[in-house]
């Protein structure tokens, strides 16, 4: 919150009228001329020590616009100077108290003036604090603006995806039925075409592959665009990993890739949607299998990061790694580095979506020793039941 500004009295906020200034100047002149003409007077009381401090008091009165006090001080100085000088010249001994009272009045004026300076300093400090608050408020506002903009884009994206989701569900239903017809027909023809008829067999195999690919795209699109809800339950991660590995083991065997599990014991439970998270692992493992040449190795590791309440799941492969230019696009829908027909480009987009629904993070990096590493990090404190 921004502090209210304090109104300051400017030094010349209330200007001393020229007449009062003239009177004061005249009185001061009289005072100093009197002191000079009749030094026996005030010098006796210590003129310099007593009356010189009056000068700053006079100036302060001028700057604050205290006209009456200024005129009074000047007049009192003149009166005292002339009165005490003449009395001293005449040999009359005057009492000290009028001088003492006058000087006390002058010091009170100085004290008031000093108070004003404190007031000025306080006001300056206050203004600086207000400026700092204003600056902070500006930074907060910029941050809020950025957040708002992000939320706005997310809202647009979410709305867009909701529409895409409805569209995808409708399209999927309409496309799946023709695909069923196509697949059944292709299988029927495969049984009836002589094996010797190589061209027709190849054609039918291609049609079969095309139908399966279209099915995979529809599945990926549905996964990516259908309502994003997770049913989080307290689950141990390792059994979910093992189930996912079971689902891809045939693919790994076909790719002649070995899989090593390094799953730590005693890991805390996480809030997991086991079914959806299994899908993440299947996508990641399938990618790893596709990226790893025959004879290569995939390692799945789970562990608690020492000193942090973070549970890590890593999938490493011994493939060729990810080209630098592809790094920023890996999670983009329909982006794929696989050959045409091998991937839908939706696997990692869906994986990230599901990981984020678990309030976890997913990153992909190349390993210095070759291949890539996918790291999924769960915050144990937030996620543990």
């Amino acid at each position, binding site marked *: 919150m921004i502090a209210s500004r304090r109104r300051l009295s400017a030094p010349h906020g209330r200007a001393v009228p020229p007449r009062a200034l003239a009177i004061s100047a005249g009185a001061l002149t009289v005072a100093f001329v009197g002191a000079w003409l009749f030094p026996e007077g005030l010098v006796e009381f210590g003129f310099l020590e007593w009356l010189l401090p009056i000068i700053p008091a006079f100036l302060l009165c001028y700057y604050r616009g205290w006209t009456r006090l200024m005129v009074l001080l000047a007049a009192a100085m003149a009166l005292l100077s002339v009165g005490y000088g003449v009395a001293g010249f005449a040999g009359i001994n005057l009492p000290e108290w009028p001088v003492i009272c006058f000087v006390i009045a002058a010091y009170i004026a100085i004290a008031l003036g000093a108070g004003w300076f404190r007031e000025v300093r306080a006001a300056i400090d206050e203004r600086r604090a207000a400026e700092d608050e204003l600056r902070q408020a500006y930074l907060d506002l910029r941050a809020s603006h950025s957040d708002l903009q992000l939320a706005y884009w997310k809202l647009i994206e979410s709305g867009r995806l909701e529409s895409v989701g409805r569209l995808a569900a409708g399209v999927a239903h309409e496309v*799946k*039925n023709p695909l*069923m017809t196509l697949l*059944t027909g292709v*299988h*029927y023809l495969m049984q*009836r075409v002589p094996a010797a008829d190589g061209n027709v067999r190849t054609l039918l195999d291609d049609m079969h592959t095309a139908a399966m690919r279209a*099915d995979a795209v529809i*599945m990926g699109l549905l996964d990516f665009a259908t309502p994003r809800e997770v049913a989080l339950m307290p689950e141990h991660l390792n059994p979910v990993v093992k189930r996912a590995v079971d689902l891809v083991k045939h693919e790994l065997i076909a790719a002649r890739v070995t899989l090593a599990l390094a799953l730590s014991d005693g890991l805390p439970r996480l809030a997991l949607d086991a079914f959806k998270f299994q*899908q993440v692992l299947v996508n990641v493992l399938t990618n790893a299998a596709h990226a790893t040449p025959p004879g290569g190795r995939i390692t799945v590791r789970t562990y608690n990061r020492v000193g942090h309440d973070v549970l890590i799941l890593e999938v490493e492969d011994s493939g060729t790694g990810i080209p630098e230019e592809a790094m920023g696009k890996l999670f983009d829908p329909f982006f794929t580095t696989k050959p045409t027909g091998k991937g839908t480009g939706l696997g990692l987009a869906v994986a990230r979506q599901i990981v984020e629904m678990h309030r976890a993070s997913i990153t992909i990096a190349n390993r210095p020793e070759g291949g890539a590493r996918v790291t999924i990090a769960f915050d144990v404190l937030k996620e543990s039941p």
Partner: protein
Amino acid sequence: MPPKQRILLVDDEATITRTLKLYLEGTGLYEVRTENRGAAALTAARAFQPHLILLDIAMADMDGGEVAEQIRGDDALKHTPIVFLTALVKKREVVASGGAIAGYPYIAKPIEPDKVVQVIQRHIQASG
């Protein structure tokens, strides 16, 4: 040669019923009757007395669930196994739920027809 199993195939997509009938009958294991209207499925089932009914869910005239209820309500058909063949669920969902959703076995379209044969055989054998 063992007698052929009677399969009633109900789906509002005529191309599906036609190609799947061809495929299933081509295996030599089945006699297939097809029906493209949900509302006519009960009558067809009563007349055909199938060993198993393959039933689509989202049909233009009648929901497959209603058709299944009608069949379950018929004394002569209430023990006939019904397998839903639908594009409404994903294969993964069927696998995750052990092949059955709400007590009914499901096949997610599209599926390779040899897998349909496997499911049909399993359920006919299970029914006795």
